[in-house]
């Protein structure tokens, strides 16, 4: 629809004194976003966001991606941020529009992803009266945001937006909510870009304390069995290159957390892969044997440590993190260092460079590598028969081969397929394995793939999904179609909620309560209905071709892969759940 009211546009912009431009609050928000260098917004309009969407209508620099559900908008903005390192932006209306963002915000908060979520709000004069579509969204999101604003004065908008970007992207990144009442968006302002930050109470520590860095170096130069445990902080800090230098300098093996997958190249001889409850046993064994653990940008989550008393009992632990509150929260380190991962690693390398000969760790490294080579999860044993469908190891092996041939980004939903992908897919670069680690939010993978594809148009973006979680935000298939995004979805289809089913078998005597999904849609027809290509494969001999065709196809495409419902994720849950059953798949 063409805009007919040219006068409104003229009225919206008028020269004001001092080089400022007079406009309304909504235009000031859009201009501020442009001035921050934003390219994409993910959102959904509504009554209290009318002024914002009207201002957006005039923007030539911003591309708005219209999602089909606000949760999809936030996960897509999150996927964009994880893939590019730039903040993701979501824009929604008040009330239900705002409350639909909550899972997405919580997910970004848990995984420290920089997001700006702009919510419409009822006008200030009726706030607190339970007006139509009124929700106290800054109140509701208090525990899941790094910071939030309820804007009460149109003049504050440029400053608030500039501050929000600063807060979201510096220190430990996280989501910031900006709630904008409709009269504030409609109010008038002489717009000047805000370029200064005055937040005296917010000064993240970047450089590590020199004395603590020296203590860490002293421990490391005497370590016989040093080990690096690295997480999402490495990715957020952009420290992958220096991490590699540190690993060579220390001759130490490197384990990652789920959030750190790809922070260290998994095809490197020193890589141990992902550690933790669903991690590789060899990585966990190395952690248990290490005498010095250098943990960088990790939060020692219960998924990594298991019961915390039993974690690395013999190791001296050095913990580097930009968030002081993470240090000592779960595991008390011998040497704490608050600072930015890349900066502190640089300081450490410099310190270690002054050290005399380092101990010979070649036996330790060789032992860890041998353990890793033998460490094949039961479901990946070659030639293992499955009762029905296609063996997961075949899917993952073929996919790994296909992904190695191209620049790719993998996103996952949440469940068994996520853990299989984490255990089996080799990732050698940061920002190429996007998964909801902390919150474990089903419905993340598809919208995250949309955001990642927009941010990285030249890469193959593949979403590994399950038949349960793909249905949580399946409506976003339309968003991919509408924007011509050639994302690929692989549904590992076991006609049920496999991860919960597995836990029910392991811990509740195989009482499968509500974990079989009846009336799953025909995913091929569903894909076609959304304008995607769809295919199903249930024969092992046809799988490799089907996967190759999927990845080679032009537009968005989905492959439904029928797998055995009895395939289990290998886990080390027995301690956590005190179960007497075997771990891994019982034959």
């Amino acid at each position, binding site marked *: 629809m063409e805009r007919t009211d040219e006068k409104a546009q003229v009225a919206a912009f008028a020269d004001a004194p001092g080089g400022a431009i007079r406009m309304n609050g909504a235009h000031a928000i859009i201009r501020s976003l442009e001035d921050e260098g934003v390219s994409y917004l993910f959102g959904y309009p509504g009554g209290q966001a009318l002024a914002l969407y009207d201002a957006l209508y005039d923007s030539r620099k911003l591309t708005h991606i219209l999602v089909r559900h606000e949760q999809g908008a936030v996960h897509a903005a999150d996927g964009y941020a994880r893939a590019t390192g730039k903040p993701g932006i979501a824009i929604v209306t008040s009330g239900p529009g705002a409350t639909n963002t909550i899972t997405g915000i919580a997910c970004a908060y848990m995984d420290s992803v920089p997001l700006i979520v702009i919510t419409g709000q009822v006008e200030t004069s009726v706030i607190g009266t339970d007006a139509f579509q009124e929700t106290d969204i*800054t*109140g509701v999101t*208090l*525990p899941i945001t*790094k*910071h939030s604003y*309820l804007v009460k004065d149109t003049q504050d908008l440029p400053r608030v937006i500039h501050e929000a970007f600063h*807060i979201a992207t510096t220190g430990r990144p996280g989501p910031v909510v900006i709630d904008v009442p409709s009269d504030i968006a409609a109010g008038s302002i002489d717009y000047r870009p805000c370029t200064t930050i005055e*937040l*005296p*109470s*917010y000064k993240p520590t970047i450089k590590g304390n020199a004395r603590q860095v020296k203590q860490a170096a002293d421990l490391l130069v005497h370590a016989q069995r040093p080990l690096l445990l690295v997480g999402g902080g490495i990715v957020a800090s952009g420290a992958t290159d220096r991490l590699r230098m540190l690993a060579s300098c220390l001759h130490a093996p490197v384990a990652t957390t789920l959030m750190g997958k790809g922070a260290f190249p998994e095809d490197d001889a020193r890589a141990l892969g992902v550690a933790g409850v669903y991690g590789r046993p060899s990585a966990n064994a190395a952690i248990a044997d290490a005498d010095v653990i250098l943990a960088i940008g990790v939060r020692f989550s219960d998924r990594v440590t298991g019961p915390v008393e039993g974690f690395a009992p013999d190791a001296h632990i050095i913990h580097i993190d930009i*968030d*002081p*509150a993470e240090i*000592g*929260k779960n595991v008390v380190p011998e040497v704490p260092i608050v600072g930015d991962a890349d900066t502190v690693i640089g300081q450490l390398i410099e310190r270690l460079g002054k050290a005399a000969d380092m101990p010979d760790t070649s036996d330790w490294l060789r032992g860890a590598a041998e353990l890793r080579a033998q460490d094949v999860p039961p479901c990946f044993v070659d030639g293992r028969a499955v009762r029905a469908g296609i063996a997961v190891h075949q899917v993952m092996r073929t996919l790994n081969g296909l992904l190695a041939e191209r620049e790719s980004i993998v996103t996952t939903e949440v469940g068994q397929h996520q853990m299989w992908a984490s255990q089996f897919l080799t990732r050698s670069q940061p920002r190429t394995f996007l998964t909801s680690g902390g919150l474990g939010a089903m419905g993340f993978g598809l919208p995250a793939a949309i955001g990642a594809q927009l941010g990285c148009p030249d890469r193959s973006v593949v979403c590994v999904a399950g038949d349960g979680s793909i249905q949580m935000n399946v409506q976003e298939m339309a968003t991919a179609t509408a924007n011509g995004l050639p994302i690929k979805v692989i549904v590992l289809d076991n006609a049920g909620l496999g991860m919960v089913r597995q836990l029910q078998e392991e811990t509740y005597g195989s009482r499968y309560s509500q974990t079989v999904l009846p009336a799953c849609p025909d995913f091929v027809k569903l894909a076609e209905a959304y304008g995607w290509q769809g295919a199903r494969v249930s024969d092992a001999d046809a799988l490799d071709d089907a996967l190759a065709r999927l990845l080679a196809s032009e537009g968005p495409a989905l492959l439904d892969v029928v797998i055995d419902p009895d395939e289990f994720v290998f886990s080390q849950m027995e301690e956590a759940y005190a179960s007497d059953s075997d771990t891994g798949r019982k034959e």
Partner: protein
Amino acid sequence: MLYTLSILVDNQAGVLTRVTSLIARRGFNIESLAVGVTENPTLSRITLVVDADARSVEQISKQLNKLINVHKVSDLTDESRTDRELALFKVSTTPERRHEIIEMCDVFRANIVDVGRNTLTIEATGDESKLAAMEGLFREYGIREVARTGRISLARGGARD
């Protein structure tokens, strides 16, 4: 153990909610809380008493420090400090026994701020032990109502502001 935290925050709407909700969701009970503006009108001071162990208090302090509106968190527990609290006691009495209470108030340097037919309302300031002692004495007459502000604290001398 009881810990006293002195928290300097932006004097803005919603900041108290950020502080108290953070403490509640990390699982701690607030024993007392007092808040008021400081010598700098853009800042408020929250004096907070929590029952926790040392490691938990360190974690609370670090989490509070992460709030953008929090400027400084000081743990005054082991500091030499001045504590004060204000209490209002509405005490039952009869015209014949009023003078007993008035004498007690003189000893405690408390003020009578309202006299009713069968009640006296007393304003008292002091640290917790003084207020507890007064409350114990007034109980014999019958306490109708008590209102207390919660503890406010400052470190002694010029080491901290």
